[in-house]
C-alpha cells in the first residue's frame, strides 16, 4: 500500500497538522508493509523543508513544481496532486483537515476518482483493512467505515492525532507537476481577522461565552483570558445570533467543531448543538450559575457560580501562574 500525505505550507512554515497526519500515515504503512511519502506543492519549498518529515518516519518526500503552482489555486493544486498520485501509483492520499485541506481533498477525490472520508478522528488497520471513525451529526454519533481495496482520500481532524517523533533519513525528489486544463479559483489576497487571538479551529485552549455573558462588552474579559493562555475565544450560537460576537467564533453544530486540550465554557447552558461541537475536548471546565445546566454533564471540572465574579479571579490566577 502506498500512501501520500499532503504537507501544508503557509507563510513559509509547515502546518503542525501535517505532521499529525503524516505520523498516522507512517503507522498505517508500517502495519501494511507499505510506503508512506510526503508531498509538498509549490515553487517556494526548500529541500531542507521537504526533509522535515524525517521527524515522523517518512522516508521519501516529493516536491511538485510548476509555474502555475506559485500561488494557491485549489483545482490546479488538486490536479497536480492527483496526476502525481496516479502516475506514481499511490493508493491513498491523506490531508490534514485544515481549511486548505478540506478545500483541496474533495476536489482531489473527484480527479483521483477515489472515495473521500472527511474529518476523521481515528484510523486503524484491522485484518488488512484501513478503518476510519468519523463523527456524524457533529459528534452526536460516530460512523466506522473502510473503503474497498484501501483506496481513499481522507482528511484527519486537527489536534486529534499525536505527532509521533520517530526519526529517519528522508530522500527528497523534485518533480515537474503535470496539470490538466482545469478551471480554478485563485487566491488573490488575505484579510487578517481583527483579533490577535488564535482561531477556535486551531487553538489548544479555548474560553467560550454564551447567553450568560449578557452582552458584547463582556466578551472583552474572555478575550483577555484567551490572550493569557495564547488560545482562542469561542462563543455559543446564542451569543453569535444575538450579534455579540462574529460567527467565526461560533462553536457547535452550525459553527466549528473543536477538540482542544482545554475548553472553558462560561455562561453556556449546553444546548445539544453546542455540546456536539465541543464535547470531544480533552478537558472541559464549566462555569455557570445554574447547577442543573446540561454543560455540567460533560464538564471535567465545574464551578457553580457567577461568571462575572469567577472569570476575573481566573484571570488573576492565570496571570500569576504564567508569571
Amino acid at each position, binding site marked *: 500500500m502506498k500512501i501520500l500525505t499532503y504537507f501544508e505550507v503557509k507563510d513559509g512554515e509547515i502546518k503542525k497538522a501535517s505532521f499529525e497526519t503524516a505520523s498516522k500515515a507512517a503507522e498505517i504503512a508500517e502495519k501494511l508493509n507499505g510506503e508512506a511519502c510526503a508531498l509538498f506543492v509549490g515553487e517556494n519549498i526548500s529541500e531542507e523543508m521537504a526533509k522535515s518529515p524525517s521527524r515522523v518516519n517518512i522516508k521519501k518526500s516529493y516536491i511538485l513544481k510548476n509555474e502555475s503552482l506559485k500561488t494557491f489555486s485549489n483545482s490546479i493544486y488538486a490536479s497536480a496532486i492527483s496526476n502525481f498520485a496516479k502516475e506514481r501509483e499511490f493508493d491513498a492520499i491523506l490531508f490534514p483537515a*485544515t481549511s486548505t485541506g478540506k478545500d483541496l481533498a474533495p476536489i482531489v477525490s473527484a480527479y483521483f476518482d477515489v472515495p473521500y472520508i472527511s474529518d476523521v478522528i481515528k484510523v486503524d488497520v484491522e485484518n488488512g483493512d484501513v478503518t476510519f471513525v468519523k463523527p*456524524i451529526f457533529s459528534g452526536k454519533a460516530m460512523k466506522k467505515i473502510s473503503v*474497498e481495496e484501501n483506496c481513499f482520500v481522507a482528511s484527519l481532524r486537527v489536534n486529534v492525532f499525536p505527532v509521533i517523533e520517530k526519526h529517519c533519513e528522508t530522500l527528497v525528489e523534485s518533480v515537474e507537476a503535470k496539470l490538466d486544463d482545469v478551471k480554478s479559483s485563485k487566491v488573490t489576497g488575505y484579510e487578517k481577522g481583527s483579533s490577535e487571538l488564535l482561531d477556535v479551529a486551531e487553538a489548544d485552549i479555548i474560553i467560550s461565552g454564551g447567553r450568560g455573558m449578557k452582552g458584547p462588552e463582556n466578551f472583552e474579559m474572555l478575550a483577555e483570558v484567551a490572550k493569557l493562555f495564547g488560545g482562542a475565544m469561542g462563543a455559543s450560537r446564542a451569543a453569535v445570533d444575538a450579534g455579540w460576537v462574529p460567527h467565526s467564533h461560533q462553536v457547535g453544530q452550525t459553527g466549528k467543531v473543536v477538540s482542544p486540550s482545554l475548553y472553558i465554557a462560561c455562561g453556556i447552558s449546553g444546548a445539544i448543538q453546542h455540546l456536539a461541537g465541543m464535547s470531544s475536548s480533552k478537558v472541559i471546565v464549566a462555569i455557570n450559575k445554574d447547577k442543573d445546566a446540561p454543560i455540567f454533564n460533560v464538564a471535567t471540572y465545574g464551578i457553580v457560580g457567577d461568571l462575572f465574579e469567577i472569570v476575573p479571579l481566573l484571570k488573576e490566577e492565570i496571570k500569576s501562574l504564567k508569571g
Partner: protein
Amino acid sequence: MRIITLVKHVRDTETRVKVAENGAKLEFIGENWVLNPYDEFAVEEGLRLKEKFGGEVVALSVGDEESSKSLRQAMAMGADSAILLSDPLFNDLDPLSTARVIAEQLKKESFDLILCGKHGVGDDNQAVGSIVGALLNIPVATVVVNLEIQGSDVKAKREIEGGLEVLEMGLPCLISCQKGLNEPRYPSLKGIMSAKKKEIRTINASVLGIDEKFFSKRIKFITFLEPPPRPKGKLIKGEPRDAVKELVKLLSEEAKVL
C-alpha cells in the same frame, strides 16, 4: 442568469441521536426534518442574484420523496422550480457518488452559477458541492462569506483560520455558502402558496441513464459508535476565590493542561 442551488433535506439540529442494535443503526429522538441550514444561505444568495441580474433559480436535491419538502421550502423562499434526483440506487451514497449523480444531471442543464451550503448537517462531509464543481470543471470556492459578481468576474471571500482568503474566478463556478454571507428570508404566505404549484421534476436512475455499474469503489459501513463517554466530572465547591485556586491547581497538576 440561471442559478442552481443544491439543497439537502436533513434532520433538525435539535435531534438527539442514539446508537441502537449494537451499532447497526441509529435511533433519533425528534422527528423534525428541515432544509439544511447552510443551504438556506445558498438559496437566499441565489434569490438576491436573481433580483439583481434577472434569470431563474432552480433547487436540486438527491433523496427520496420526503426531500421534496425541502425543495418546496426553497421554492417558498422564491426558487422558480426544482429537480429531485430520486432512486433506490441513490440511497446512502458516499460524497463522491452523490456528486457524480448530481453532475450527471447538471451536464444536461444550462447554468451560470451553482450554489450550495458549506456542508450538510448530519453526514458532515463538506464535500459534495466541491466534487460537483470539480467533475463539471468549473472553479470552486468553499466556505464563502462574501460574494461579488460583475459581468462574468466573481470575487469571493472564504473563511479560513484567523481571517479571510480573497478568491477570484470566472462564471460559471460553484460557491459553497457559509453563515454570514446573508440573512435568509422567511417564506411569505404567498410564497408558500405559490410553491405548491411550482414544478418538481423527479428524475430516476434510468432517466438519468445510469445503473449500479455507474458507481465505482464503495465505502464499506462497519458500525455506528457512541461518542466516547466523558469521565465523571468534579464539582468544585467553596468561596469563588478558593474554588478558582483549586480549579487552576487541578488544571495544572491533575489534568496537566496548563
